[in-house]
């Protein structure tokens, strides 16, 4: 739906205007320019699409070596890989783990970050600069710096191989990120709303919970979605901290198809498609908001 409607609005005026003035305005393209433009974009789209399309195609071939003879797949298309993955692997266990970790991170991360985002958007207090600097700096943390001490701490606490460990490490990046992102969003809500609330006798907490939070729902949604996606895609900590294969998240589970000795590319491809399709569809629904949210924190600071 959304992909077709803007086209009609864009192209509609063209036939009406074309017969009136035949000469091109300065800055308008000739047919060659248009062809080049389409050519470039088609080529770029093909490159963008190819790896994913190839994965989908290979997932339909029954043998693990089919990727060596892709021509042969067309003759024997089958869903047997999907059948196998859904029935004989830990797919649903992985799904459950991924959901627990990602949703846990999202809920905790956004809840904790929301008030801070508001505070740094509206208030200036001693320590404000330092806090903003810390929030920004944690974005630059390489995983290498936290993974070793976290591993030590968690193994002392007996938390290795638990979901809590992963939720905690994911929160260490999700919380500052969400706070930063939400600050950008709160900045776009007019300050007059706060003032009106204060005049009516609300405390800053009251203003925040009763007036601002309901208005900020789209911003919260973006922060939540972004945290969720990041937590789903987290590889390093999940690979290191999860030992029991029934607790693997997708990011770890997918690796199990490809070991040093044996690569079951067909099952891997089918699983990858099963993971990628819902995430991608979901992503497309919100991607426009994502970019705005992502750069708002940066450009409007």
């Amino acid at each position, binding site marked *: 739906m959304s992909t077709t409607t803007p086209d009609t609005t864009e192209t509609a005026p063209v036939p009406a205007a074309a017969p009136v003035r035949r000469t091109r305005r300065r800055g308008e393209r000739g047919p060659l320019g248009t062809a080049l*433009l389409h050519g470039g974009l088609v080529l770029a789209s093909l490159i963008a699409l190819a790896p994913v399309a190839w994965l989908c195609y290979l997932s339909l071939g029954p043998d693990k070596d089919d990727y060596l003879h892709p021509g042969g797949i067309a003759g024997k298309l089958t869903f047997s890989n999907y059948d196998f993955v859904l029935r004989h692997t830990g797919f649903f266990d992985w799904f459950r783990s991924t959901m627990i970790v990602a949703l846990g991170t999202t809920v905790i991360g956004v809840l904790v970050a929301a008030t801070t985002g508001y505070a740094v958007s*509206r208030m200036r207090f001693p320590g404000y600069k330092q806090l903003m600097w810390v929030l920004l700096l944690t974005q630059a943390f390489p995983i290498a*710096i936290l993974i070793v*001490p976290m591993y030590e701490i968690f193994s*002392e606490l007996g938390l290795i191989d638990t979901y809590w460990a992963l939720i905690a490490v994911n929160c260490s990046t999700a919380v500052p990120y969400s706070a930063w992102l939400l600050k950008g969003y709160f900045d776009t809500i007019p300050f007059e709303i706060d003032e009106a609330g204060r005049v009516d006798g609300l405390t800053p907490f009251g203003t925040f919970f009763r007036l601002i939070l309901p208005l900020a729902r789209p911003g919260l949604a973006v922060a939540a979605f972004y945290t969720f996606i990041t937590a789903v895609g987290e590889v*390093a900590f999940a690979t290191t901290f999860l030992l029991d294969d029934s607790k693997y998240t997708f990011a770890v589970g997918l690796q199990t198809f490809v070991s040093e000795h044996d690569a079951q590319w067909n099952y891997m491809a089918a699983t990858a498609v099963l993971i990628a399709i819902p995430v*991608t569809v979901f992503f497309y629904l919100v991607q426009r908001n994502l970019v705005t949210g992502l750069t708002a924190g940066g450009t409007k600071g």
Partner: protein
Amino acid sequence: MTVAIDRATGKRRGDRAPRPGLGQRVRNGLQKYWYAYAMIAPVVVVLGVLVGYPLARGFYLTLTDANSLNSARTIGVNHIDATYKFVGLDNYQDILFGPTAYDRFWSHFLWTVFWTAACVALHYCLGLGLALMLHQKLRGRTVYRLLLVLPWAVPTFVTVFSWRIMLADSGALNQLLGSLHLPQPEWLEDTFWQRFAAIMVNTWCGVPFMMLSLLGGLQSIDSTLYEAAEMDGASAWQRFRHVTLPGLRAVSSTVVLLGVIWTFNQFVIIFLLFGKNSAPDAQILVTWAYQLGFGQQPRDFAQSAAYGVLLLSILTVFTSFYFRWLKRNDQLAV
């Protein structure tokens, strides 16, 4: 009362003549700003526990000779206490100037710098090119935009495996090259081609974000500027050079900084593209640090943590120089 709505209160300091003592000031501050402190408390606590404490602990580890044989661990029901000892700055000395410093640190450092520069340059140029193309009035540009976002939408750990299949010895890419009678490099075995492949895959993954951010930037440039430039007889190149690029400055400086940080720390692509224990020369510092800490036996926790500290210092230095440079050029966006 007036604390929450900032701006006015933050600057109203000059009217208090005698400076009260420290205790009094802390008490005044708490009274005046307690709303703000209560609101940031959750984040401060979480960051303190989840980032601050591990960071301090990690820094201490770099001053010891900790590895998986002498760290505290539990085998079955037996708990073994840690036996590692304090060695001062030996780890740093060893990493930066030791006999194997070049093979282990500096070669990876050079490759990481090259990797970051190459990837961010490619991200930016391709992203800008595509954004400019999508910014034109064009039939079906919404469809193009959706297709071009695809690499960003699919989780990275999924697409990297897809690339691995395509780059395999007789995978799709080499079959394609073979049918065109072009040489078929060993993408995943030869060091040069490993690095080439890593940059290629990371570029593929990173362009969509740049493209969308820059497209947003392009759309926010006032179109009357272009009209004015055209009236003054500016050529297409001059309009790009003097209207588009300055108009994109704020967005560009943000996305380039993010791009450098993300690329420098890019773990997933290299880790998954080459699998465990292969391609030692294509590892960037982050994956190499991980390799030291978790990819070998015995696990060298102290050196891995030291790499972490070095990486963070490099990024901190880079970021502060970048900010200073932005400030001097008056392009501060963040």
